[in-house]
């Protein structure tokens, strides 16, 4: 049976599980600080279920890769650098598993409004890349997705992506989801 899991690295292993009750939160300079309109997230955390909204990742927190410009990022507040420097352990790992060994192809990664895959997220500017890409992609809607590399035969496939977002207006953004699609055989 095929399944996706999403994880973050804590400098020891992929110990931050991103699940329905532990989702990513884009933050300002701290967990409780909101991202300023027009600025990208300065930190990313794992937050517990809606309503409680507590920081679940603990120190060291989930790595943050912030969009600076088309070819540069800021990793954990260390200053601007080339996106080519991003390490896999600084990314979000999307792991695809299958009961037998399969090849993957035509994988794409993008943000959308949570309902219609071709519709960009509402009120959010979103950039993403696959680790080793030379530039960010303004990956809003399936037609603008990041193209993810094909992988050979295995029952476990790891894809490493960086994500960065900025609100276009004040207020919670509820029409915002991130999606991975792939073909396998």
């Amino acid at each position, binding site marked *: 049976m095929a399944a*996706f899991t999403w994880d973050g690295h804590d400098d020891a292993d992929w110990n931050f599980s*991103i*699940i329905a009750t532990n989702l990513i939160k884009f933050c300002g300079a701290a967990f409780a600080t909101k991202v300023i309109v027009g600025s990208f997230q300065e930190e990313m955390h794992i937050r517990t279920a809606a309503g409680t909204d507590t920081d679940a990742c603990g120190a060291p927190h989930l790595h943050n890769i912030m969009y600076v410009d088309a070819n540069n990022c800021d990793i954990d507040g260390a200053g601007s650098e080339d996106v080519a420097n991003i390490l896999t352990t600084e990314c979000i790992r*999307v792991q695809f598993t299958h*009961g037998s060994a*399969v090849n993957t192809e035509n994988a794409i990664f993008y943000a959308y409004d*949570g309902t219609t895959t071709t519709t960009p997220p509402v009120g959010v500017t979103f950039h993403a890349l696959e680790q080793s890409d030379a530039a960010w992609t303004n990956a809003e809607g399936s037609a603008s997705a990041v193209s993810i590399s094909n992988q050979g035969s295995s029952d476990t496939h790891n894809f490493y992506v960086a994500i960065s977002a900025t609100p276009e207006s004040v207020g919670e953004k509820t029409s915002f989801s991130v999606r991975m*699609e792939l073909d*396998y*055989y």
Partner: protein
Amino acid sequence: MAHWVVSLSDGTSAIENRGKFKEGTGKPSSWRKLLKHLEENKLTITGLKIVVKGRHYHLPTLSDDYRFASAKPNNLYYRRKAVGDLMGSKFNPAEQYIGAIAEYDDFIIKLWVNEKTLDSYIQIIEKDD
């Protein structure tokens, strides 16, 4: 369980996850076992259908006697499509499709069936020059 069924050039059939094409942990997928079988026995695929919850979805075939005559594709193959969401209400795994694909000189036809809802979609994709 959704699965593919292929007709082969020696008159036999192969079914996903059955007989010599049965899957196992860490072993090649059924389709990759089929590809190996084709190569070892110098066979080709002449027909392909997918079966989901008892419904059969057919592509044009390479056979002459098919009741729904059609332009013959150059190649027939199968894929599955998996979709997962990271944020939002539709957390992983959101959707799973099984697909049958017919390749022609200038275009590719992809027939996808949602394994849960049975909704089906046809893509016609022009090939790059």
